[in-house]
């Protein structure tokens, strides 16, 4: 049905954007942008391991990203180093170990640039099944976990006091992140996955009056960015990941222009803080 590589990339990309929308909202609400980066960077270690052990690529990436997030949770509990420092260590060492392992495997030739920045030619029809199957799973999980996730984002202690399980919600959230990273890697590329989570969500903020509206809008804006980016990538022969990010950025800049009736001061109200 999708005999054209471009249509395949488009269908896959839109699927990724739809699931990245609500997840990306939580990433910015919970200030976990750098955390998402760390998980994404560890994906290259997953790529290396999948080649080394002859595992399915997405499965290997999912396992490695999930393990890294659990490792971080464990190290945070020990409390020896700040989360910032831990993320810095994990992020770059996972990426580097992956690159080193790949370099050692002289018998395989892999397109490193494709993994790092995305490659629209890489999407197969079975990938599309996985993306949309996984995407539906992610959306269902988010809908199911919405209230505990949102409540523990506002205040974990309040959520726990009133009978929710913020730790469990957090764990599921990290598994969903790992799943999205594993699925999105081929199109957006390891280095740029987090931007597909963050930029559409940040763009949606200005036009949203409730968390639910923001989550849906982030998906829509993400899908627009993917469509625009892929057309750009095809037209100018640029890597798909950066093209999508540039398109997302263009939408974000447009959202900052003083048009529409929503007040901008809501967004510029509390300037410091924000993301790492």
């Amino acid at each position: 049905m999708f005999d054209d590589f471009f249509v395949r990339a488009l269908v896959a990309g839109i699927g990724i954007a739809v699931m990245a929308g609500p997840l990306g909202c939580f990433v910015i609400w919970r200030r976990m942008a750098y955390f998402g980066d760390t998980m994404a960077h560890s994906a290259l270690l997953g790529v290396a391991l999948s080649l080394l052990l002859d595992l399915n690529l997405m499965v290997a990436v999912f396992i490695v990203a999930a393990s890294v997030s659990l490792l971080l949770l464990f190290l945070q509990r020990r409390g020896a180093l700040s989360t910032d420092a831990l993320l810095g260590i994990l992020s770059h060492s996972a990426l580097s170990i992956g690159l080193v392992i790949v370099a050692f495997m002289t018998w395989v030739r892999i397109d490193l640039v494709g993994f790092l920045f995305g490659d629209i030619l890489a999407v197969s029809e079975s990938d599309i099944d996985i993306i949309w199957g996984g995407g539906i799973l992610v959306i269902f999980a988010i809908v199911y976990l919405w209230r505990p996730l949102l409540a523990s984002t506002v205040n974990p202690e309040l959520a726990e006091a009133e009978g929710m399980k913020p730790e469990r919600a957090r764990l599921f959230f990290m598994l969903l992140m790992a799943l999205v990273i594993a699925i999105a890697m081929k199109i957006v590329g390891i280095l740029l996955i987090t931007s597909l989570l963050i930029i559409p969500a940040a763009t949606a903020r200005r036009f949203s009056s409730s968390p639910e509206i923001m989550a849906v809008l982030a998906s829509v804006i993400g899908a627009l960015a993917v469509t625009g980016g892929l057309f750009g990538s095809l037209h100018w022969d640029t890597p798909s990941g950066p093209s999508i990010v540039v398109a997302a950025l263009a939408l974000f800049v447009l959202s900052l222009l003083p048009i529409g009736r929503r007040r901008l001061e809501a967004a510029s109200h509390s300037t410091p803080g924000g993301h790492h």
Partner: protein
Amino acid sequence: MLNFRSPETTPLVRLNNAGVRRNGRWLVRGVEFSISPGEIVTLIGPNGSGKSTTAKTAIGVLKADEGFVERKAGLKVGYVPQKLAVDWTLPLTVERLMTLTGPLKGREVEEALSATGVLHLAKAEVQHLSGGEFQRALLARAIARKPDLLVLDEPVQGVDFSGEIALYELIKQIRNRTGCGILLISHDLHIVMAETDTVVCLNGHVCCRGTPQAVSQSPEYQKLFGRRAASTLAVYSHNHDHTHLPDGRVLHADGSITEHCYPGDGHHHDEDDNVHDHGDDCGCGHHSRLHGFELKEKRDV
């Protein structure tokens, strides 16, 4: 005074010699109290004395490292935390805040918001509220779910004096109307809500406990606070003869420093004081004068 407690009522929550330790240091130890339906318990104590820790232990957010906590099966808690900062990236109106931890009918939301006087702010984003408005919204959220136990961690912070009186009156009404138990953490060491049944003073341990002295009985306080406040506020007068230092050591009234504040360390000079009317188990040498009218804490350190 209304009394909802009857002898056969089982307490909503009971702490038995509860203690919480973090990084090898006891944040709070040996805490004992219970809250029954309709009862108001107020925790007071200086900063870092373990008030919030105790409240969180009572509702199960923190686990007791020693002793134990009994909670009534299926206990429904309404919680107003001490600090709650909502990131500006999260679009959250007051109305949406109300259903944060569970669904509510529109009528229930309206009732709670008008009870705390912030119904007109239902559509406002929480980040744009003033401190007092936000506290009222949080209180509305906690009462809207009709809890068995309402836990309020410094609910009057950021609220001006008349707002404080109004909030205390509201808390009293909520107790009288719903019969829920209330655990209140006070930011003030001496002034507590008049309706409080039990005051528990913490300083890493239970220093003393008692009932407050109603302000309304003293003409001087009536003059100082005004008639309305005088029926709402009460004084809990007490003295401590030692201060807990940040490193866990104890500074005594005579200027000496010891590792702990247990009895028999030679730094407590008023152990034979007749006014010392709390239990022998405390042994920290302070005295609590429930009938005193001193406004300022008499600290001779």
